[in-house]
């Protein structure tokens, strides 16, 4: 069953075409990897899906609803959550607050309820803390919960970024280069966790990644982008053996 649909997306910046005629579907509980050389349009396409860019043409459909005109925050509330390529930890906030920020429909974000500190606010906060603890334990960030996020190492920021997105309880998680800067041992565990989340929580993933090996290992479907368009699409094996893909990715010489 289709969860996300991109239909004929096109985006230009000052006359330069960044993305053109990009269409694909992501099925529920699928892991889709997007690869392509620098400048292939992966980032632009990613931002179109997350709502940080508006397409010139084309539509984005999520869970049967046309979300093309929805702001990023509305997409998140519907279960479509993104991460950032360069970890955007909120430096002047503690790790735990970074996590709690991501909880959805938090009654304490309403001014009056916050001022009154009602029991529903406190209850919600308690539950959110438990969930955050579980995620931080898994990501081995629990001991750092009271540290300012800006004091974390590069790899830890990356993990916090992922944890925070999971905290938003996504149906579909858009991951922008989650492996970059993470040590190989952790990369393996992250990949395993992504597959677990898919199996146990029925989550769906779209992953843009430079680490081709990692993408090939976890993806059900791989989309190869080139020059702003989709060049190749299929199982990892199919894309890996696609002549056009090899040519584009390796700069014309194999």
């Amino acid at each position: 069953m289709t969860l996300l649909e991109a239909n004929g997306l096109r985006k230009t910046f000052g006359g330069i075409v960044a993305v053109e005629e990009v269409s694909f579907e992501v099925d529920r509980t699928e892991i889709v990897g997007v690869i392509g050389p620098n400048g292939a349009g992966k980032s632009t396409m990613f931002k179109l899906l997350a709502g940080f860019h508006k397409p010139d043409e084309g539509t984005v459909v999520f869970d049967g609803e046309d979300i093309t005109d929805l702001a990023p925050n509305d997409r998140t509330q519907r279960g479509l959550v993104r991460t950032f390529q360069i970890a955007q930890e909120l430096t002047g906030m503690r790790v735990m607050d970074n996590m709690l920020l991501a909880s959805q429909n938090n009654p304490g974000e309403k001014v009056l309820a916050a001022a009154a500190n009602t029991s529903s606010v406190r209850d919600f906060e308690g539950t959110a803390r438990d969930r955050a603890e579980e995620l931080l334990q898994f990501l081995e960030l629990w001991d750092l919960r009271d540290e300012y996020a800006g004091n974390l190492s590069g790899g830890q920021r990356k993990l916090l970024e992922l944890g925070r997105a999971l905290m938003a309880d996504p149906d579909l998680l858009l991951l922008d280069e989650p492996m970059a800067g993470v040590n190989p041992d952790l990369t393996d565990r992250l990949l395993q966790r992504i597959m677990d989340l898919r199996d146990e929580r029925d989550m769906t993933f779209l992953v843009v990644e430079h680490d081709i090996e990692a993408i090939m290992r976890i993806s059900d479907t791989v989309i190869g982008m080139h020059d702003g368009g989709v060049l190749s699409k299929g199982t990892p094996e199919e894309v890996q053996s696609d002549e056009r893909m090899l040519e584009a990715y390796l700069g014309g010489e194999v």
Partner: protein
Amino acid sequence: MALVDLLLVVGIIAGVYSLLAIGMNMHWGDTGLLNFAHAGFFAVGAYTSAILTTPPATGSLATRVVGFDLPIVVGLLAGTVLAGLVGVLIALPSVRLEGDYLAIVTLSAAELIRLLIHNEAWLTTGAQTLKNIPRPLDATIPFSYDLFYFVLVWALVGVCYLLFERLSSSPFGRVLHAIRENDDVPLALGKNTYVFKLKSFGIGAAIAGLAGGLWAHYVYAISSIMFLPSITFLIWAAVIIGGAGSYTGAILGASVIVFLRQITRFIPGDVPFGDQLSYIRLMVVGVVLILVLYYRPQGLLGDAERLQAGTSE
């Protein structure tokens, strides 16, 4: 005047400035918004309460035809609410702008407010002083009125302090802090950052309006030159010196500034440079502000660790 009386007067002014600084700290300290319209919100609160609680002026030279003679509580509440609304109104088109653009737009908006007050005499008495603003319980306080007002103002400072501290540490405040750190992240995490910014602007402006009302009812008479942008800048100095992000810091900073400004009241007038003292003390405020920014960027009570977190890259 006895020293105690003098201290009470300075304390009342410090309380009013503290309220202004609390509002500003929500804007800048919590949300990272550069509000330069604070003097405008202060003026809206003062004039609203004054107009609502006085009768229209009478006599052949009277210019003001509007006045309601309502109870002071109504005036204070209305001034608070209206200042908040004006805050939201100014924020609606401008709050999406980048930092220093927002500063200039809000500075301009406050000047526009002052221009309106200065020229719409039918409503505000214009360039004239709006006089005879009633003092609450003026005739019924059996002891020093200044003592009563001091307690009233600082009780309100206390209430606002507790309220704003709670908001700042609530999930609502958490979203504001996230906006301060990086707008895009709360947006990606499902928060309508625009609406949160409007709320922050409105709430902080409302407290400035309350401060305006309290000021008007203490000094009897107000005029538009009391609400120059230098008030805004003094409050900025207060928040920065006290430590952005800390409400105790905001109150301390406001008190320090008021003390610096008023200290010459405690010095006999016949010292050398006596005439220049009022200007020299404002020069001192400028120097202190710069020195604090250089030697203690987190301010007196700000969190140095927070400020330094993440600067290593």
